[in-house]
């Protein structure tokens, strides 16, 4: 009986000990943070680090069904002499710059208007401008392709006909094709950027405006000397994501042309990566294209961040 009791208590002690170790582990201030970040770290390694490193490796290889061959800088050399790739880089950069010109000032303007007392029924305006970004690009792209079709009955040709102009082939010329691409971009992203700016505007202390008013500032002066500087963090954020989104654009062009546009006017860097990697099954070459895109996006964004002073320490 005594024996039995002692063994029972031993079992209980062991259990307590285990519980303690487990609890100590969980409640320990040192380990807990790691436990919490672990899911992120794991997915980061599996979905980011691994593909990223294998992309780097593959960009130096020729990937073939019977195994891969190391070819050193072969893919990169070919890339630099590849006219279509250089054109794709040009297209992507141009698209990115044009979207910056349109998608920063106008959403900012709309946000300021919505933040002011000039506009009524703000909720409706916000919803109206935001809804397009919830629409699938596949559906909206198909609609836009029909609207810009070269046929007589397409919306934009009907508009031209109304003004007495002959039909034109919208998607076969640079200016009109980019008009179409930018129209899609503006239609989709104006609302999103506007919401970013709106939330930035809401966080500005109204006291600043009041003191500016006391000093006799006009509406414009308030906008330039109060709103813009206070909005700087939001502006930098929107600029950074817009640069990346512009350079990585693919689906819009894919929906308009199906990745085979006349004179490659709609070929973007990602479109070219898709063509080489998926359509032509040249994974090594496509990896090199992807890495070059990464470098371009990084360099442009770094320059932008340095120029806007993000890395400088806050002045006290």
């Amino acid at each position: 009986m005594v024996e039995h009791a002692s063994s029972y208590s031993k079992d209980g002690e062991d259990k307590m000990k285990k519980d303690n170790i487990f609890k100590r582990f969980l409640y320990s201030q040192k380990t807990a943070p790691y436990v919490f970040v672990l899911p992120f770290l794991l997915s980061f390694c599996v979905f980011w680090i691994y593909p990223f490193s294998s992309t780097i490796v593959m960009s130096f290889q020729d990937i073939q069904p019977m195994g891969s061959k190391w070819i050193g800088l072969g893919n990169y050399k070919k890339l630099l002499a590849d006219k279509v790739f250089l054109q794709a880089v040009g297209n992507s950069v141009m698209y990115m710059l044009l979207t910056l010109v349109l998608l920063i000032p106008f959403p900012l303007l709309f946000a300021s208007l919505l933040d002011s007392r000039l506009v009524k029924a703000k909720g409706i305006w916000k919803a109206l401008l935001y809804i397009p970004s919830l629409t699938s690009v596949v559906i909206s792209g198909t609609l836009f392709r029909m609207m810009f079709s070269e046929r007589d009955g397409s919306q934009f040709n009907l508009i031209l006909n109304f003004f007495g102009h002959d039909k034109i082939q919208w998607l076969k010329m640079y200016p009109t094709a980019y008009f179409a691409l930018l129209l899609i971009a503006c239609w989709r992203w104006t609302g999103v950027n506007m919401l970013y700016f709106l939330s930035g505007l809401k966080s500005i202390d109204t006291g600043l405006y009041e003191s500016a008013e006391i000093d006799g500032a006009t509406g414009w002066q308030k906008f330039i000397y109060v709103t813009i500087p206070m909005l700087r963090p939001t502006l930098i954020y929107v600029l950074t994501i817009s640069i990346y989104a512009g350079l990585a654009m693919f689906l819009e062009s894919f929906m308009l042309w199906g990745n085979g546009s006349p004179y490659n006017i709609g070929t973007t860097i990602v479109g070219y990566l898709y063509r080489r990697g998926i359509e032509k099954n040249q994974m090594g070459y496509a990896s090199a294209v992807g890495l070059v895109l990464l470098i371009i996006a990084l360099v442009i964004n770094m320059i932008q961040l340095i120029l806007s002073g993000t890395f400088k320490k806050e002045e006290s």
Partner: protein
Amino acid sequence: MNKKFLSTLLCTTMVASSLFGCGTNTASNKASAKDKKEEPVVTSFGDKKGTKLELWTFVGQHADFYGKMVEKWNEKNPDRTINMKTTTYPFSDMHTKLTMTLQSKKGAPDICDVEAGQYPNVVKGQDEWLYPLDEAIKPYKDTMVESRLDMYKGQNGKQYGAPFHIGATVMYYNMEQLEKYGITQADVDSVKTWDDYEKLGKRYVEARGEKGKFFTSVDTAGTDWLTIAMAEYGEDWTGGNKKNAKPNVKLKSVNKMLEYQQKLLKEKVAQVSTDGQVDTDGGIADIGNNTIVSFPKALWFMSRFKDKLGADSGKDQTGKWYIAKCPVFEEGQKCSVGIGGTGTVVTKQSKAKKLAADFICFAKMSEDGEKMIWNDLGFDVCNTALWDECNTDQDNFYNKYFRNKPYEVLKQIKDDIGKVSITKNTPAINDQINSTTLNDVLEKGKNVKEALEEAQSTIESDSE
């Protein structure tokens, strides 16, 4: 409680959106985007106790066809029955999935349809990826058109794909319209050369005298006209199926055809095809609206008449169109060429390779199979022994739809069907010609020699 609910909801949305975020950039999504059909269609056929086979295709009608053939196979081979699962994917989605699964050596189906233009990507794996059909093809080989079998051979000479059709090019004429303007069937039959064709076109356009109405249309996003010209001169811009074949687009045939097309455009006999070529929504609308009354295309284009210009389309063309031989540049040349096609392959990953190979050859080459290909799918079959029978079949849709019987024309041109290879050089050539050269020459009127010179240098640097 409310707060708890709200935070749970937010967390779920966040996780879900981050997962969806991962997904939106995958290839398959983009591919399906193009094809405008999101969901693959899965169907099962045959004996539930039979050997399980999986088949992928990119055309719904093909899946139905294989289903019917499985039933026939099971009737004839009770000891080797099949239970087939077919999946129909969007075009590029399926091809992407296939190459990925072959490359990773996991997840490929037993049997898969591969479109001719995509075939070089798949056949480059040869024995590593695919199971050769040479053994299974033996019983049917004698009656098959050889050039179509050759198309689906690997560089090692083994047969890896089974063809559906010949895809012989012919000239389609809208006789009803032509007759309205005084052109008879005899006039059409007397067209032997491209010069005759041009004269007939001028006659029609002058008689009609209406702005925006043309005799034919030339393509800026398709190479059919050029392929016909190459077959006529016996040239091949891919350089053929040899191992180190060099592409060459600076050919006499290509040059001649492009200059000829420029002339047609100048004389307003032709327009540039709406949407780039005839086999598009815009091109088919032009046919339905009588904007154009003649165009060269492969015989499989007949199925477009059935699907898009049939009795219930609102633009019914029944009884209006006439099929004739394509013109040639110089008399005595071959007047046709096989275009397009689907090569069906058996993958190395299949657990019942031999059964799959036997079945696929039965389905696509036996008498039963070929008859069904003609009646259900409307293709010009590769089994020449059946041509007479196909021709006399009174119930066949196409025999009733056109003014003459398609197989009559096919029999006339039987020995005049040329071949232009589809090789690893094809994608680079098509890219350049379709995106730039044809637009330069036909839209901007650029000098043909210069345009081809430019194309050649781009293609060479691309295919190195």
